[in-house]
């Protein structure tokens, strides 16, 4: 008998929750393929380590961008391999709940459910990421009070107001931490004349990236390829210049939070002042982001205890109470 699964199919990482067991898989959403034969060579962490370091015949790709499937066939193969790794076989077909960004189109929704079904799921249902995040962050969404959750992922940032088990207001932008990495890559290329890979850009963001001034700021030494000479070169980056470089994606994220606050009904708005908003998702770990949102909205921002796992834990709760919560699926009766 197959154990039902909840999957957080993120642009950056994929997490799988197994009913009755908890989180059984947490890996980057990357797949490495042989360019000539199309064979899968590696998935997850192993494939992630290959990004930007492969010979010509291997390609390591992220099949999701902005929370949506960009390559249906590769995504299906990735999901199939993930399901195999958690023990799903041809004879054990589990029910699957998949977390997706709320802003995805009907076509994109179909692509995700079809990919899961073809990969071995008996039934595939979708749940909005902010809703799952609110359950996973343990917010009291069963009460008639305003709960605000900001989920900043790799490709999307979503802010939702939730009350009585339903989404009251929602604002989503297809900007996430990968856009911050890309902004760093562009800045280093433009201002210092060196090319760096996306993994190095991510490391710079983690080391010295910030959305507002912080107390313990340090510089970082970065190695890349000089665009003029083609030789390896080292430059020193300051936190101020990185803050300036990532200003565009950061301000888009903050602006979407402000727009969501403006959409919330007044009765619920007053709850936020007391209860605050909850930040989840890997992008929420950017230094100074919570303080920046707090400063621009004048609403307290609290970090979830489990920012990276909140979404899959929420979906896991839904799979544990499948019959009672099936009305929460996207496209179900509201």
């Amino acid at each position, binding site marked *: 008998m197959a154990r039902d699964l909840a999957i957080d199919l993120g642009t950056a990482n994929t997490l799988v929750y197994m009913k009755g067991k*908890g*989180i059984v898989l947490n890996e980057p959403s990357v797949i490495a393929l042989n360019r000539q034969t199309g064979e899968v060579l590696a998935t997850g962490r192993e494939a992630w380590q290959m990004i930007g370091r492969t010979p010509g015949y291997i390609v390591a790709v992220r099949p999701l961008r902005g929370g949506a499937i960009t390559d249906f066939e590769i995504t299906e193969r990735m999901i199939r391999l993930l399901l195999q790794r958690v023990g799903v076989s041809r004879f054990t077909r589990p029910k699957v709940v998949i977390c997706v960004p709320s802003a995805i189109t009907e076509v994109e929704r179909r692509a995700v459910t079809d990919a899961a079904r073809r990969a071995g799921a008996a039934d595939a249902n979708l749940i909005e990421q902010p809703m799952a995040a609110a*359950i*996973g*962050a*343990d917010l*009291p*969404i*069963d009460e008639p009070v305003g709960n605000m959750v900001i989920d900043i992922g790799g490709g999307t940032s979503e802010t939702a107001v939730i009350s*009585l*088990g339903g989404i009251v207001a929602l604002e989503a932008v297809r900007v996430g931490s990968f856009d911050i990495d890309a902004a760093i890559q562009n800045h280093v290329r433009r201002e210092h004349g060196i090319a760096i890979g996306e993994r190095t850009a991510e490391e710079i963001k983690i080391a010295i990236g910030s959305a507002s001034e912080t107390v313990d700021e340090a510089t970082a030494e970065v190695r890349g390829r000089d665009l003029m000479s083609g030789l390896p070169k080292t430059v020193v980056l300051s936190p101020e210049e990185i803050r300036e470089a990532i200003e565009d994606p950061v301000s888009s994220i903050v602006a979407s939070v402000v727009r969501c606050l403006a959409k919330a009904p007044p009765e619920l708005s007053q709850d936020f002042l007391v209860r605050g908003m909850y930040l989840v998702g890997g992008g929420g770990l950017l230094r100074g982001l919570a303080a920046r949102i707090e400063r621009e909205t004048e609403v307290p921002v609290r970090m979830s*205890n*489990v920012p990276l*796992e*909140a979404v899959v*834990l*929420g979906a*896991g*709760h839904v799979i*544990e*109470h499948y*019959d*009672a*919560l099936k*009305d*929460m699926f996207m496209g179900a009766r509201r």
Partner: protein
Amino acid sequence: MPLLIIAVAIVALALLLIIRRTKRSDDAVSDFRRQINALSPDARKNVTERVRQISDESSEDEEGESNGS
């Protein structure tokens, strides 16, 4: 006689419709109640427990790293 049968059938049909409608609205109420109950803190004990476990593990890891460095 046939008129009586038709009248009885119409009345029975009307009763059936009323009962079904009442039942459907009762179903909606109980479905909503079930959903809200499934989201209550009691029902979410498992999630809370897992949240605590993960945050304990990560704080232990951080302590280990800072002791190690």
